[in-house]
Structure formats: structure tokens, C-alpha cells
């Protein structure tokens, strides 16, 4: 594979192997800095080449699906933060949307706009984090520092909005709890105006970097068939030749009103995925500019509602709770007993930064979901390592894990 160019010949002077087939089993992780969490890979090696890979997951299993069955719907919201903790608003949103679809709720326009702001900021945060950590794994320390610097700006904006930097819980079933703070749009604009130059800086450092290219080009190639068969989604699927983005194909919120492109590549290797992440950051910035305009239009049109009006399921605005007896009673019931969605099933998929994040909810009309299945993209992006790694060399493992962009909060749930 690509490593042949500079492959060192193996040097096993002092080591003897017990088995005749000269196969070495290497445990990569579960405590390995470049395994991006608690991934244990059992690698069968012939010299430096992997002949069999066996990913072992579950070290971060917290039983979220079980927890969901024992919690009221609103109570589960902060738990979703802990899935993909790099972009937690995306998880909040996926869950909120699934429950809204279940009860057939339409969310006010202003909160849709705020949700889109949060979602795209989360996407940028996640992609910047991906770039930083992957570059660091491969040895590009500078990019790591630059990308974390930019991510810090975004985290500050989010912190100003919801008070948290990683586990936002910033979205509610039925809307958003708060309007954005005064400085939000200004800070975001300042950031977005700088972002193209920042992305160009990263690209200047990486795009023609010989080491980066050697580690990325023609390494970890996922064919179209393999991507489909393994249920790849998001950048993993788009890098393998499918221009499939749920924001375009099954638009939710106001994504059908914004202009953006879906970058894709038919190469399927690490480098294609890297390029897609970079282009998606540009597209996110493009979307954010348009959403800022939408928000300003909402302000001009005096659309102030943030939460949907559905007394059976959603608490009234704070001012009503404090002034009207009935709203207070209803709020009390919803907080202590929880909402009771209709009997039925729903599967709702959204495009999280990592791929298709799906929530399957089976409700039996009670305050707790009867069954909730979390479809996390990283789960299958880890599984694909079984088929992807054989044939590669040990250093490729690090770059392949990097570009699959797996997060173990999401794999293990």
C-alpha cells in the first residue's frame, strides 16, 4: 500500500516467536492516545502488516437505551449530550426532533433558526476538533494548536448561550429555552469572517505536506460497496462517492431554505475524507451567514415565540407560569410526571457531524419511552475497521482511526 515508499525493513533480531506462522497479536488500546477514546484493537500482524483486525468496544458503555426507558422524555435530554460529546447539540437536536415527530409538533420559526445556528456551530466545532486531533496523531502539532484556537472561539460563543462548553443540553423538545445573547451574532460574524483564512492556513500546512500526503493518500480506501454494506454515513459515505447529505435529501428545520453544496469524492481514502471535512467547514460557514440573516429577519418580523404551543406536551413560557394558575399546574404536571406522547413508533435521522444520527422511539403512551434505540454513526464506522485494516501497516491504523472520526461516547452509548 502507500507505505511501501518509505517502509523500513523489519528488524526482529532478538525476538523469537512461539507460533510457526510468525503472527504477532498486538493489543492496540484500550488506553492509547491515538485511539480517540476507549478502543481496543486486536491486530494480528505479519511483520508490520495487519492480516486481521478485531475492534473491541464497550469500555464506555453506560446503557443509555436502558436509562431512556426509565426516564421521562425531558429528563433524557442531558444524557444525549454524553453520546457524541464533541458536538452535543446535534444529539440534543436529534432526540428533540424525534419526539416532536412522534407528537406531531411544529416548532416556531425563530427557534428553528436558533437550532440551525447551534447545529452548524457544533458541526464546525466537531470538524475543527477532528482536524486537530487527527493532525496531532499524524504529528502535525501546529495544526492542532491552530484548530483548537478556533474551536475555543466557538466554545466561548456556545458558553455564552447555554453556559456549558461541551455538554450543552441547549435544545428542548418543542423549541429552544432561550433566545441568543446580544453578543452572539457579532461574535459569530467576527469568527466567520476569519474562518476562510484559518481554513486556508490549515490547508497550506497540510495539503502539500509530504508526510501528510504519504499518511493519507491511498490509505484506508473504502469502496462504494463496502460503504453501503457497512452502513457508512456522513463524511465516510460522501468520501466514497455518494453525494448523500440528510440536510439536502430529507431536509429538516430550514435547511431547504439555505444554499449550500454537498462536497463528495469518489476516492474513498483518508485524503478524500480530509478534503471533505475541510470543504464542509466552508459550507457550514456559508450556511451560518444565511442563518444569521434569517435570524435578523425574525427579529424584524417580531417573531418572538421560542417554544411550541402544545399544552399537553410542552410547558408554557415562563411569564405564563409565573402569572397564570393553569399554566403553573400544567408545568407542574409536565415536570413531575412528564409528557405522554401518543402510541406509535418513529425513526428520525439527522445529519450529525459524524454521520446519520438516528433515534428510534417506540412509545406506548406512557411518560417513559417503551424502547429507544440510538443509531450512532460511529458504531459502524468502528465496525468497518474489521474489514478496512487488513493489508495496512501499523502507522496506517492511526490515520485510519483518525479519519473515521469515531467518538466512543457514541459507539458505546
Amino acid at each position: 500500500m502507500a507505505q511501501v515508499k518509505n517502509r523500513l525493513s523489519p528488524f526482529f533480531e532478538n525476538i523469537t516467536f512461539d507460533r510457526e506462522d510468525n503472527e504477532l497479536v498486538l493489543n492496540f488500546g484500550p488506553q492509547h492516545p491515538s485511539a480517540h477514546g476507549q478502543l481496543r484493537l486486536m491486530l494480528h500482524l505479519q511483520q508490520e502488516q495487519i492480516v486481521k483486525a478485531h475492534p473491541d468496544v464497550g469500555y464506555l458503555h453506560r446503557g443509555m437505551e436502558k436509562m431512556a426507558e426509565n426516564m421521562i422524555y425531558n429528563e433524557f435530554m442531558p444524557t444525549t449530550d454524553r453520546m457524541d460529546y464533541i458536538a452535543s447539540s446535534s444529539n440534543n437536536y436529534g432526540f428533540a426532533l424525534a419526539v416532536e415527530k412522534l407528537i406531531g409538533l411544529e416548532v416556531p420559526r425563530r427557534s428553528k433558526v436558533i437550532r440551525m445556528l447551534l447545529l452548524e456551530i457544533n458541526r464546525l466545532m466537531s470538524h475543527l476538533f477532528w482536524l486537530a486531533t487527527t493532525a496531532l496523531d499524524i504529528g502535525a502539532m501546529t495544526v492542532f494548536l491552530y484548530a483548537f484556537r478556533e474551536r475555543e472561539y466557538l466554545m466561548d460563543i456556545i458558553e455564552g448561550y447555554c453556559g456549558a462548553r461541551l455538554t450543552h443540553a441547549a435544545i428542548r423538545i418543542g423549541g429552544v429555552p432561550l433566545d441568543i445573547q446580544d453578543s452572539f451574532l457579532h461574535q459569530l460574524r467576527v469568527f466567520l469572517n476569519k474562518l476562510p483564512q484559518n481554513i486556508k492556513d490549515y490547508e497550506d500546512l497540510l495539503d502539500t505536506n509530504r508526510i501528510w500526503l504519504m499518511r493519507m493518500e491511498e490509505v484506508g480506501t473504502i469502496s462504494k460497496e463496502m460503504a453501503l454494506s457497512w452502513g457508512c454515513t456522513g463524511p465516510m459515505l460522501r468520501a466514497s462517492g455518494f453525494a448523500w447529505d440528510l440536510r439536502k435529501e430529507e431536509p429538516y428545520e430550514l435547511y431547504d431554505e439555505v444554499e449550500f453544496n454537498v462536497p463528495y469524492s469518489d476516492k474513498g481514502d483518508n485524503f478524500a475524507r480530509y478534503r471533505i471535512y475541510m470543504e464542509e467547514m466552508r459550507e457550514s460557514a456559508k450556511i451560518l451567514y444565511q442563518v444569521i440573516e434569517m435570524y435578523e429577519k425574525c427579529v424584524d418580523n417580531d417573531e418572538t415565540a421560542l417554544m411550541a404551543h402544545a399544552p399537553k406536551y410542552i410547558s408554557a413560557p415562563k411569564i405564563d407560569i409565573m402569572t397564570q394558575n393553569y399554566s403553573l399546574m400544567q408545568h407542574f404536571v409536565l415536570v413531575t410526571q412528564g409528557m405522554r406522547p401518543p402510541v406509535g413508533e418513529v425513526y428520525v435521522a439527522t445529519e450529525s457531524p459524524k454521520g446519520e444520527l438516528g433515534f428510534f422511539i417506540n412509545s406506548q403512551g406512557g411518560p417513559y419511552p417503551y424502547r429507544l434505540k440510538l443509531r450512532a454513526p460511529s458504531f459502524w464506522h468502528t465496525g468497518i475497521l474489521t474489514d478496512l485494516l487488513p493489508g495496512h501497516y501499523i502507522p496506517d491504523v492511526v490515520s485510519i482511526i483518525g479519519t473515521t472520526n469515531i467518538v466512543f461516547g457514541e459507539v458505546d452509548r
Partner: protein
Amino acid sequence: MRAYTPKDDVQAKAYYTDRFYVAPQVPKQDVQSDAVFAADLAAIKAKFEVKDAFIQVTNMVVYINANDIYSLLEFMRDELEYTQLTEMSAIDWLAKDNTFEIFYQMLSMNKRKRIRIKYSIKKGQAVDSVEKLFRSADWSEREMFDMFGIEANNHPFMKRILMPYDWQGHPLLKTYPLQGDEFAAWYEVDKIYGKEARDVIGPEIRDTARVDRYDSERFARLGYEVPKGTKITDDMEKTEQSYQEEGGVFMITKFDKASSKIIDDPQR
């Protein structure tokens, strides 16, 4: 008299239930209301027995026989362009009628449609693995086995995936309590210290919200702070704690609650 708790479903139950409450239904549409789904269903019906089919929240749900699943998914993948198995898992209905419901969430990227295939199996029955058709089922079926104990025939590696290999019990069953069972309480003690240390260590406390106000070794007592290890009795006075050295710190005036003005007007 102690309240009756059903043993076949030990999950959280609604505290308040209205006897006359009739839960509304998520609306189901007829399959004929969507041309693409209608065509797909007609193609499926020509080859397989369909027990029920409807559209619910933009997804078509099709109920089939358990032994048709492999050939149906193959047919859907090759003929109907449902090229991705997005998700599959089970729902535990053991308390109701001793069955599991298995669902397969299929996606067609060309048609932009999603179909959910469902069937029921009895307890103890195995399902046919579709791992040969969709590699993604490899891990999904392992997860289903791990969580529900449903085995898949012809699966290449039917082992637990999320729980430890030597775990007993299947956590997503409705009979499995949220805080784990007897086995779970001793698992780590046995593993780390050995069975002989059970008496010394005691079972693992698996209730994450547990607070013991008489235990000053492990729990802080806000406003009633005592030195670690103090024996707590019920008639203890509230102990005011001072968090600053008596001599004071350079540049910092010692906080004196008595002489301070406390502003409690939030609108100040």
C-alpha cells in the same frame, strides 16, 4: 400491604395513571397514499407474505414472517434499491405475549425512502443472520444478542459486544433492573479481589444517586460539615464552617458574614 410490582417488567412505571385516559395514536397512513411505497409493497407482496403494512411518520412499516427475512432483504437490496441497513434491533414484548419484535430499518438512497421491516419471534427462538447481505448487521446482531439474548443463526462471531464477555444477563430485557441484578453487584468485586473478599468489601453500590447521611467517610454534609469518620447522630447541631484562615490572606479581607450587607434582590 406492599404494592404489587410485576416481575416480568421491572422498569420505571408512571406514578400517576388515569384509569380513563385513552392514549392518542400516532397517525398511520395507507400505503396507497404514497406511489413509491405502494409499488414497493406490491413487489414485496408478490413474493412474500405480508401480514400488515402502513406508513407512519414517513416510514413504511411492513410486518412479515420471521423465516422470510433473509430472502426479503436480499430482494429489497437487489431489486428495490434498498441498499443500506441503517439499523436493526429488537423490542421486548415478553411481558405481553412472550415475544420479541425485531425491526430492520432500511434506506434507499435512490428513492429517498425508508422502510422498517418487522417480525416477531418467540422467546428462545433465533433469528436468521443477514450479515452476508449487509456487513453492518455483524455488529447490530451482536448488540442485539448482547442486549436481549437473541441469537442469530449463521453469524460469524456471535459474542457480546458492549458488555464484558463473561457477563450474565441481558441488560435491555424488561426483567433486568436499571441498577443491575445480583450478578452485576458482585461482578467487579469478584473480578478484582476474588470471591473470598466478598465479606470484606460487600456488594457494589450501583445506585448512582445513593446518599447516606450517616456515612461521613464517603459523603459530604453541606452546612453540617464534620471531620471525616465522625459518628453521626440525629441530634447534631448545624456547624458553621469557616473557609478562610484566621490570620487572613495578603490583599484579601476576611469575609465576615455578620458585618456584610447581603443583597437578596435579584433585580438590584
